[in-house]
């Protein structure tokens, strides 16, 4: 599929060029995690205990805020019209845009997570577990977020609406992501169960996200 390849390359290029949003998510992630100890105090034992939850929340927000412009930018400059007319199925077009977004926003978060985990006093095994859960879970965040981005595409204050729409949908991902990460930290619960569910959530969102987002775009564009 040359057309989908071209789209993937373009979106990734745009993300790293001037004005693009790649790495802005990581920066946001870093700032949020840094703020947490100020709010709760520099108690390393406490930070270690809530570390996975903090990282997951920060990753969720970073992912979401970066999604705001995913379709809106294409809508404003008319590109979205041409994407909608494409011979490639719109679901695949949307999925490719989601993939490009995850590669430029979600993946850097996963890579940065161990460094940030260091600040929260997470040890080696906990960090490995956290990175693994983020690697498996962030695609779910991106692809659920696609739906909100598509619904809010034509709205001027789409960013806030997007957050309000999508955050409740991400509750299961958050629950099982943090549960799996905590299990690595030595909690009573086993690691396998929440991790498997997290994988399932990601796979399901990989399918549901593009279909729902494509349907929303078709409606919205009128």
């Amino acid at each position, binding site marked *: 599929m040359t057309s989908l390849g071209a789209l993937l390359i373009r979106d990734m290029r745009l993300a790293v060029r001037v*004005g693009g949003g790649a790495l802005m998510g990581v920066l946001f992630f870093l*700032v949020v995690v840094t703020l947490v100890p100020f709010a709760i105090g*520099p108690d390393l034992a406490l930070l270690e205990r809530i570390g996975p939850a903090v990282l997951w929340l920060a990753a969720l927000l970073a992912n979401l805020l970066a999604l705001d412009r995913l379709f809106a930018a294409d809508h404003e400059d008319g590109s979205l019209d041409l994407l909608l007319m494409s011979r490639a199925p719109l679901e695949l077009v949307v999925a490719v845009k989601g993939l490009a977004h995850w590669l430029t926003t979600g993946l850097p978060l996963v890579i940065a997570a161990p460094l940030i985990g260091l600040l929260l006093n997470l040890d080696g095994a906990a960090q490995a577990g956290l990175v693994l859960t983020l690697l498996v879970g962030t695609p779910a965040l991106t692809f659920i977020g696609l739906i909100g981005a598509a619904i809010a595409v034509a709205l001027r204050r789409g960013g806030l609406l997007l957050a309000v729409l999508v955050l409740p949908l991400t509750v299961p991902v958050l629950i099982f992501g943090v549960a799996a990460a905590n299990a690595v930290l030595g909690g009573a619960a086993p690691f396998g169960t929440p991790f498997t569910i997290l994988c399932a959530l990601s796979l399901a969102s990989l399918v549901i996200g593009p279909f729902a987002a494509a349907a929303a775009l078709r409606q919205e564009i009128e």
Partner: protein
Amino acid sequence: MSLTDLANPSRFLKFANRVLPWLGGVTVIAFAIGLNQAMGAPDDYQQGATVKIMYLHVPSAWLGMLAWGVMSIAALGTLVWRHPLADVAAKSAAPLGAAFTLLCLVTGALWGRPEWGTYWVWDARLTSELVLFLLYLGVIALWRTVEDPSRAARAAAILTLVGAVDLPIIKFSVDWWNTLHQGESVFRFGGSTIYPTILVPLLVMAVAFTLLFVTLQIAAMRNEILRRRVRTLRLMQAQAAS
């Protein structure tokens, strides 16, 4: 973007071309002397050999602050005198400042691990250094987001000056925050007197790092001037093509 704006920069380019080889050479010599002395310096009686990390850590902390100082002065130049070279200086200093602050954080963590048993504590000094690093990243992000350099320069100048005013407040509040919570388990740098055998290499290393900063800053400014020239010429080209 008028042509007079190129005037001072082209003088600067000539200056940079002349001075950079010499500066580079002096920097290498200073590092040779500094590293030689640092390796020969005795170990600290309390901290042992890890004190060698100090010869990197302290100069990079100093450069992290120096770069923000350079950016603040340049910000005044941008806002008050509208000097194009000030924009260039501010933009070039930001990545350098960020890099040296990062080096300060990394060496600090590597020093902290053997001394305190952990890479990171939410100590006042470390935390304010981390906030400084985040501020640098914010400024760089701002430069990267706004395409028009003179508009980006003004926005970044305001952010830089606010940061310059805010940094002491951050430092103060973090100190206060920390004493509230953590008492004196904090690593105390001024606790032990520094012997001349350690101090002299440290000063030489600080000079070497500063020379390195100046060299890189001038080279980065030269790049930035060239980049703007390319931009101007391209705009002229687009216009001429009609």
